[in-house]
């Protein structure tokens, strides 16, 4: 009898929970009433497709401190597969404007081009806006003694096969950027590229002397640069950046590799245009606050607001130029 009772109780509780939780899982449906903006009426969820404590997590939690959407915002970490799981969860959420997510365009491009994704998230997601950008750097550790890109090229040419270069992940834009940069420098065939599973892991390997060069993001390296245990050689951009006026950019050295790392906010396909613009406007206000700019600088990010349509246009252009790079990468991984 007791057994039956407890079983019934357990099943009831389970069913209760399942149905309570099931609500958020219904697939995206088009919401029709765009007549007047009656938004937001309840909490807005922001999906963070990366672990707590990472760059995206800090970006969202930092933004939330200054963001006033007129409703509470709730951050949810959905990590796994380099942000892909969270991206799909965001994509498959209800497009009522109450679930948005943060992501970065370069990873969204990577999912499609590496053949991992069945949907082209970078085309199909709604772009709210980009808020910050991060840069790729070519760095070394002080123990190598290199201070310019030319010294690296000379050394590698004199000692082919002895230098190992760390990068973040494989089959993604980071690896592609690393590959393109090394090719432009003419040393791609003379070094070994090791893909680490994160910027922090690559940086740790550089600090431990396991690699001699790395192509890593400014966010992951800035504190080491400040401490003098990481020597930046070049920044992937067409101009120098304000935070590091003495650091040469790739273009001035004659290497045309300028892929940046913008980060922004996205919404499921079919989200009301008015809602997208509303959130984008609020985000723009945040980006104009000096405290926010400073907080982001502390994270290694440069605040650079770009509205949704412009961000999408820029991303589509990048995707086009990256297509041959991914074809090259596919050849390596066979």
């Amino acid at each position, binding site marked *: *009898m*007791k*057994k039956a009772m*407890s*079983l019934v*109780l*357990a099943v009831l*509780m*389970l069913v209760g*929970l*399942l149905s309570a*939780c*099931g609500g*958020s899982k219904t697939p995206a449906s088009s919401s029709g009433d765009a007549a007047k903006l009656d938004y937001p009426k309840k909490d807005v969820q922001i999906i963070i497709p990366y*672990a*707590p*404590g*990472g760059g995206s997590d*800090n970006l969202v*939690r930092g933004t939330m*401190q200054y963001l006033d959407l007129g409703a509470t915002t709730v951050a*949810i*970490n959905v990590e*796994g*597969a380099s942000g*892909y*799981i969270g991206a799909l*969860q965001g994509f498959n959420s209800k497009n009522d404007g109450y679930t948005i997510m943060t992501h970065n365009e370069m990873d969204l491009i990577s999912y499609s081009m*590496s*053949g*991992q994704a*069945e949907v082209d998230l970078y085309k199909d997601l709604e772009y709210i806006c980009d808020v910050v950008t991060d840069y790729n750097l070519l760095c070394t550790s002080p123990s190598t003694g290199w201070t310019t890109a030319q010294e690296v090229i000379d050394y590698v040419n004199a000692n082919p096969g002895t230098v*190992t270069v760390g990068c973040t*992940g*494989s089959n993604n834009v980071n690896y592609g950027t690393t590959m393109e940069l090394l090719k432009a420098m003419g040393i791609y065939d003379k070094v*070994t*590229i*090791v*893909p*680490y*599973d994160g910027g*922090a*892991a690559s*940086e*740790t*390997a550089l*600090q*431990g*002397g*396991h690699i001699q060069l790395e192509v890593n993001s400014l966010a992951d390296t*800035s*504190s*080491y640069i*400040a*401490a003098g*245990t990481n020597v930046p050689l070049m920044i992937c951009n067409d101009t120098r950046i304000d935070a590091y006026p003495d650091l040469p950019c790739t273009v001035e050295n004659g290497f045309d590799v300028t892929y940046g790392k913008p980060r922004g906010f996205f919404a499921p396909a079919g989200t009301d245009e008015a809602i997208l613009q509303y959130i984008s406007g609020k985000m723009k206000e945040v980006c104009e606050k000096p405290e926010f700019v*400073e907080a982001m600088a*502390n*994270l290694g990010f440069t605040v650079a607001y770009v509205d949704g349509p412009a961000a999408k246009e820029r991303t589509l252009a990048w995707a086009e130029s990256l297509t041959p790079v991914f074809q090259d990468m596919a050849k390596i*991984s066979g």
Partner: protein
Amino acid sequence: MCILLLALGVFVGIIFGSIPGLTATLGVTLFIPFTYTMAPVQGLTMLIAVYVGGISGGLITATLINIPGTPSSIYTCFDGYPMTKKGKPAEALAIGVFCSLIGGTVSAFALMAIAPQLAKVSLSFGSWEYFAVALMGLSVVVAMCSDSLIKGLIGAIFGLIIGGVGIDSISGVSRLTFGFWQLQGGISSTALMMGLFAITEVFNQSLELDKPRPKIEFAKTTLIPPLAEMKSCWKAIGIGCVIGTGIGILPGIGQNASTLISYNLARTVSKTPEEFGHGCPEGICASESSNNATNGGALIPLVCLGIPGDLTTSALIGGLMIHGLQPGPLLYNEHPELVGGIMCAYFMANVVMYVMELGLMKAFVRMVNVKLSYLFPAIVACCVLGVYTLNNRMFDVWTMLIFGFLGYLLICLGIDMAPVILGFILGPLIEKYMRMALIASNGNWGDIVNRPVAVFFVVVAALFVVVPVARKALGVTKKAK
């Protein structure tokens, strides 16, 4: 103020830790927003307290009802629960709590005294070393399954296979995802462990719900750890502290691996290895001292290098950065007050945790005699809630339930859970580091001989495999004569 926050943090941590399904990481993540308005030292004190309480709190349900409150307490179940069944729940808890304190304190001293040196050690570990350490961990499977090697290996291989699920980060190929995009990130380890341990256990014990359960009688709870019972345990505690701290300083390995390596190592060197798994205090000591020592170890690369040692410390990094503090090599020199605060908070949190858990013990111990028909639905509900909260999706809950059934099937087949977990946790680590090491050396296996530390661990691993087998073979020939 800080003391109050510390006490509150530890209390919340213990609650999160002791409820199956709610983990220490979840506790820390949920508390980060509360620390926004606090001063950095206060905020970090609170987060560290939650962390310490959470990791330690897992031992309570592990000991009393055979369900680990937090995945790092899995190995505490193996000996804690049999002790409870023997009518010694209070002693088992007291031993566990005391070892948590020792593990925490030893790693706190390591953190205070030699953190910069240990951080250098952690940097010197490259892919080959990580590979070798993980391989050593996996090799104990042979010693572990001395009763039935075949069943042990089946378990370990099952673990390796489910560990392989997900997108392979190096080649980008999806493995064993059966078309579920949710599986591309691999099987959620919390969902898996709650399934295999909590849900399976509920199924298993539910079969006996209608049988009268003998009321477990136990002596008055004491606040002093039963030192007499722990005479033989110092070796196990030592192993737990050293391995725990050592694994803690290596970013990316974590508590689960450290407890399983410590437990199996303690069993290997124990004078009475046959008692492990049947209520041996040494087992509790090894498991609980190492998971708490890992906490302190993981804080070392955090304060010295700005590198998180495990998942929970990466949440702590988030807590630092939100206050505009850049974790990194400069933190140690430029913010000594903060680093001192972290160390102090960690040490104090361990003491508070000890006092609080002993104080709460009287209440906890009653749990063993609560009717299972009340307890189990509550546990299942908490597991569902906790696992759902991980990623806010039902998929993980289904994963947990499916592994609950699979776990029950394994029990019916007489296959231990321990090798399954071993394979699941260590398999992916071995694979990842081996492949990275091979990429860096252009596919040259011989490169490993340039890394003496790695060679050392590989040799130890080989010994773990060969010695038990050789012993058995020799034993057999002796009997034959």
